[in-house]
Structures are given as structure tokens and as C-alpha cells.
């Protein structure tokens, strides 16, 4: 068992209700839910791997592939939609050449959509890593991406 996963597991008791917090911690540490970590969790919580995949695939937060260097999230909440969030996403898909939900071939960006970041008054917003950019304009997007390598 890799040390990182082991270190996460010991922080939680062996109760099935701890499955989601454990998955969240694993994703925080590894960036995704690796097949090996599922095996370890299964052994620790004494529930089947199928059950773990069943739960983790239900929630939008969990991913099963290695993430890119930067996460690029386009908010598609209602306020952002009304103010052109979908156009922002279309443009980014075009500029990066990947579809929403994919990682660029050079692993530079993960392009994702989120339901709402809660910054509706500053819409449309885009989140790159931890920073939220407000009132983004489609013609300024390429410039914005230059800051992230």
C-alpha cells in the first residue's frame, strides 16, 4: 500500500459512512481516485470495490484519471449562462482543442464545467486552480491562459 493512502486511512475509523471523506482525502492527495487506492479502501472499510466505484461515480467531484497541471473550470450557473458562460466554454474548447471533461494532450489543462461557483454577481466566471476570474470576456481568454504553463 502506498504510504499516502495508508496515512489517509488511519485518520478515519473503519465505518462505512467514512467512505466519502476518505475518497475526498485521497483525491486531494493524489489528484484522482486511482484503481490501487480503491483496492486499499475496500480492504480497510471491508466493502466491495464495486460498491466504492458505485458511490464514487455517483458524485461529480471524483475523477478516475490523472489530472492535468492546471484545473480550468468554467462556471455554467444560471447567472453565468445568461451572461454568456456557454460561449466561454465553447471558446475554450476551441482554443485548447479538447472537449469539456478532458485533459489537454500536453497535460497542461483540465477543462471542466461546474454548476455554480457562487460568484453570480460577477458572472461569467472562470476558475483556474484556486483563483476565480470574474467578468471574463471571450476575446481575453487566450491572454489569461498564458499565465499558466
Amino acid at each position, binding site marked *: 500500500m502506498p504510504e499516502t493512502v495508508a496515512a489517509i486511512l488511519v485518520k478515519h475509523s473503519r465505518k462505512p459512512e467514512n467512505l466519502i471523506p476518505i475518497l475526498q482525502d485521497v483525491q486531494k492527495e493524489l489528484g484522482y481516485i486511482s484503481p490501487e487506492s480503491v483496492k486499499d479502501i475496500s480492504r480497510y472499510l471491508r466493502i466491495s470495490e464495486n460498491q466504492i466505484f458505485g458511490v464514487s461515480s455517483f458524485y461529480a467531484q471524483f475523477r478516475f484519471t490523472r489530472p492535468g497541471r492546471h484545473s480550468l473550470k468554467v462556471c455554467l450557473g444560471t447567472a453565468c449562462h445568461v451572461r454568456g458562460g456557454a460561449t466561454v466554454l465553447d471558446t475554450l474548447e476551441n482554443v485548447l482543442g479538447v472537449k469539456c471533461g478532458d485533459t489537454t494532450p500536453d497535460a497542461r489543462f483540465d477543462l471542466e464545467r461546474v454548476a455554480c461557483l457562487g460568484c453570480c454577481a460577477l458572472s461569467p466566471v472562470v476558475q483556474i486552480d484556486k483563483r476565480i476570474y*470574474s467578468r471574463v470576456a*471571450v476575446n481575453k481568454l487566450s491572454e489569461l491562459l498564458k499565465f499558466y504553463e
Partner: protein
Amino acid sequence: MNNLTKRIESAKEKWEAFQKNKEPIIYIGAASCGRAAGAVQLLAQTDRWLKENELAAKVVQVGCIGPCYLEPLVDIQMPGQPRVSYNNVTPKLLPVILGSHVGESVPYAKAAIGHFGKEPLNGIPRFFDLPMLKPQVRVVLRNCGLIDPEQIDQYLAVDGYQGFMNALKTPPDDVIGVVRRAGLRGRGGAGFPTFKKWTACRNAPGNQKYLICNADEGDPGAFMNRSLIESDPHALLEGMLIAGYAIGASHGIVYIRAEYPLAIERLYQAMQQMRDYGLLGEHILDSDFSFDIKVKEGAGAFVCGEETALIGSIEGKRGMPKSRPPFPAISGLFGCPTIINNVETLGTLPNILRNGPDWYNRFGKEGNRGTKTFSLVGKVRRQGLIEVQLGTSLREIIFDIGGGLQKPFKAIQTGGPSGGCLSEEFLDLTVDYESLTAAGSIMGSGGLIVMDEDTCVVDLAKYFLDFTQKESCGKCTPCRVGTRHMVEILTKITHGEGSAEDLLALRTLGDTIKKGALCGLGQTAPNPVLTTLRYFRNEYLEHIKEQRCRAVVCKDLIEYRVIKEKCTGCQSCVKVCPTGAISGPRSEPHNVDKTKCIKCRSCYVTCRFEAIAGDAIVIGSVEKTS
């Protein structure tokens, strides 16, 4: 009890000394929205500026005061002077403001939006007299933006935890009685009387009872709960203590979205402070009441806003709703009686317990007592977080508080994806649970999205249905298959391939899903479609019969054109076009190659803001003859 009384006394002294400050205080609104607008950079810049100029000042991070369109906000309070608020502060403007106000003690009136004093000041209006704030009644949001959310002492100084102490002095049944007389209804959307739920839970057999705070604010376009937790976390936590005491619970859980990292951080911090002050844990304030709170992060599933799904998620399962009864108040989390209350419901409780039910009854109207927070966003001029009495009209909210729109008003969506889209004729509708339901919408958690003629209602209905369809957990057929089918029909219509029968099919499907779905998500999912069909039928017909989208939103029905007479050939649009669809030599009118154009809007935006002779590129949707 004594210990806390002492602490309150010292907190009040501290607060008074803080108010009679000897050195300047600089408040920076640093909730998530302020941060997105650049507050963090301003914080660093302020520190640098103070160091360079060798001036001493206290820099305080506060929460969100409401008018998000003014972000980032920087407030300055000089000794013996009222606090003055500056809006939309840029890194360029900040040194000017600091230089004038902190450096020379002269408020920089040109950039100031309002002050918090009682007397007039240099022609600056009072902050709470601003048109956006004057009609509002701040009960839940009373401390937001005014106190430091990271300091329990400031909350104590403004009578925090007073409501909880009042509750502790009376038997739990009396606390429920107070809430009954106050007429508080659940602020999560359905408006179920809070005391009824509580009574059922209190009377349910079982030693172990749970209180869950639903902070899984999943509605896109709503951020009231995030703002409250970020700006005044103790208000929520005090409410949880009161509710926990009333229903006889010993465990509380805050189920909060993982997308709100700052709110989660503030909660953990506030809970630690409560523990230090003996407000959490065994025998709180030396009473027989023991209560502990845990934070559970949601993992991104809209359906977990539904009570039974939320419980499933906390138990570590897939978040799928169960059929009721049994209601969670009888058999909920791990089979124990469980109460699930919304953040705002809990945040209101301290005020009711502190000031009494009669005070609370002064707000709102018969059957709809109190206030409600809304996030007012979309195409209004003044966007932000607002709190009004129930029974306020939509017109007042949109035009008095929101300042109206730049273009003509078209529609307002209340209640998020579960709500309805109301047209102009409903502007005089009062905002209360019954009126909104009668109009085919719902109160919901409080998102108000205002739309002008640039929004296509068919596209909007598709957007909401697409959202609920993706978020449907798939357990019951009406919701799983029905919403899918509705999205397919709507997509067809937005592509200009719809037929008149499709409208009937949408109606039938919508009615069926409403009646047949298992949980609130499914039962309300068709609302956006049904209301737009009712109030904006013409627009559907235009899409179907004329293949025209009057708001020029539906991509398949629009095209981009260059007006030759206006175009100066400045090449700005050629540079931004990602597919090379625009061509033409410099100084000559450009051409759009329609086969290459992906309708990304880049050229349109550029032409409006950067081109030498703007507005040459237009988007049109013409009647097609085929």
C-alpha cells in the same frame, strides 16, 4: 454561565475600544466574491502601502455586505470619524484613496459610495440610505460585512449567543412554542412550518437524535448561504445550538458543498472558538445540554439537497432519495429521528430567540412572517445579496433595489432549476410562498435571475432541464426518462426542427413527471418548461414556425454578418477569430465565411469594445424560407 458572561463583558469592552479606535481601521470585503473581484491583491497592496508610508493601521477582513456589483469594497475608519466605504477599488485607485483618507484624514469623496455615521459627511450619502439598501430589512444578514467573521468576540459584542442563552433558560418545548408563534417557515424552499417538523422529531422515540444543517446550496445562481457562512458563521452555529436543544439532539452535522472552501474554513475556525468558550461539547455552559457539530463536505450532487438523499450521502452511500414516509423526523440518519434545516432557517433562530416572536412578527405578512434573503443576479444593474420582508413585490426588488435593467425587462426566474420563469405581468406579484406557487413557480432557496431581451427563454428552459436531467439520480422512471425526453424535444426546437405537436408533448411529459416523480427534484424539474410554455408561448412558436430566435441566442438559428458601411477594416476581429472565418485586407470591409464560423462571439465582442469603428459586426436571426 458565569464564565461566558465575563467573556461577553470583556468582548463588549474590546468592541467599544475598537470602535473608538486610536489608529485607522481598514476593512476589506474578502468573501469569495470580493476575492474574485481582487480583494486579496488589495490586502497585500494595503499592507505594502502602510509599510512604505510608515503609518499604522488595523486591516480587517470582513465578509460580504451585499452589493456585490460594488466589489471590491474597501472601508476606512479614521479615529473619531465614521467608517467610509469605497466601491470598485482598483489597484490604481487604492493608493489615492489611502493617501487622502489615511494619509491626510480627508475622505476621498469622489470614489466613496457611502458612510456608516449618523451625521452628513462631505456630501457622501449614508451607506444604508443607498437605493439598493434602503428598502431592505436586515435580520439574518445583520452582521454581514460589519463584523470580523473570524472573531467570536465581535459576534459576542453584538449580542451573539444571547438567543441561545435565552433558549437554555426555558424548557425545549417552550423554545418550539416561540418558533411557532414567530411563524417561521423553512427557508430551504418548501416553506414547511419549522415548529411542526421539530415537534414531530421531539416526540419521536429514541435517545439519539440528529440535527443536520443543509448547506448544500446546489441551485445555480444562488449564493445566500455561502455569504452568510463566510460573513457570520457564528449566526448559523448559534442557530444549530438552539435547534439542537429544542429537538433534543446531541449531534449536529453541517452538510456543505465542497465548492465553498472559504466557508468551510470559517466554520472550522468558528467551531474551535466555540469549543474554547465552552459553547460546544459536553454540558454546554454548565447545563445538561451536550451538543457537538461535525462538518461533512458534499461531493457534488445536486440531488443531495433533497433530505433523504442528503442522509444517504452522509451515510456514505449514493445520494438517492427514498420514498416518504417514514419522514426523517421519525427515522432519518442511521434510522434515528433527524431534523434537516436550511442555513437561513437556522441563521434566523438567534434573532427570534433574542428579540422574541412578537418582534419577528412585525416583518412580513400573515402566514408569511419574517424576511428572506435572495441573490439578485442576471441583467439587473445592482446585483448582490439582498434581504427583504416576505410580501415585497417583484417590481420593488427588481427596480428599486436592483435598479432596473439596461434593456427592457423580459422575465425573472425564481427558485433556480426547480422554479418558474415569470413574465412582465407578474411584476406586481408579492414574494411569498403561496403567491409564487400559484404562479407556477416556487420560492426555492432564493435565487432571483433577471433576464432582458437578450435571453432566449427556450434556451433557458433547455438549460435548466439539461441541468436537472444531468443531476437526476436515475432512481425513478418519470424523472430519469422524462427529463431526458424533454431535453431532446427542447434541443430539437432550439435547432429549428421542432413541430407544433412537440409543445403538446412537453406539456404532457411535464405534467406526468410532476405527478410521478419520487422526490422534489423530479416533481419540480418541469417547472421552467411549463411556465415558459404558459407565459412565452410565442417564442416557442417563433422557433418552430419561423426558425427565428429573437434573442439571437440559439446558435443554429443565427448568423454573423459584417455591415459593410460601418466596417473600417481595422482587422481586430480577424486577429481574434479562432477559425479564420473572417478575412479581408486592412482598410477594406471584412467578410465572414459562414461555413467556417463557429459563432463563438469573439469578433462581436471585439468589435464592440476595441474596433476603431465599432458595431460593424451584428448577429441576426432572420426568417428562413425553405
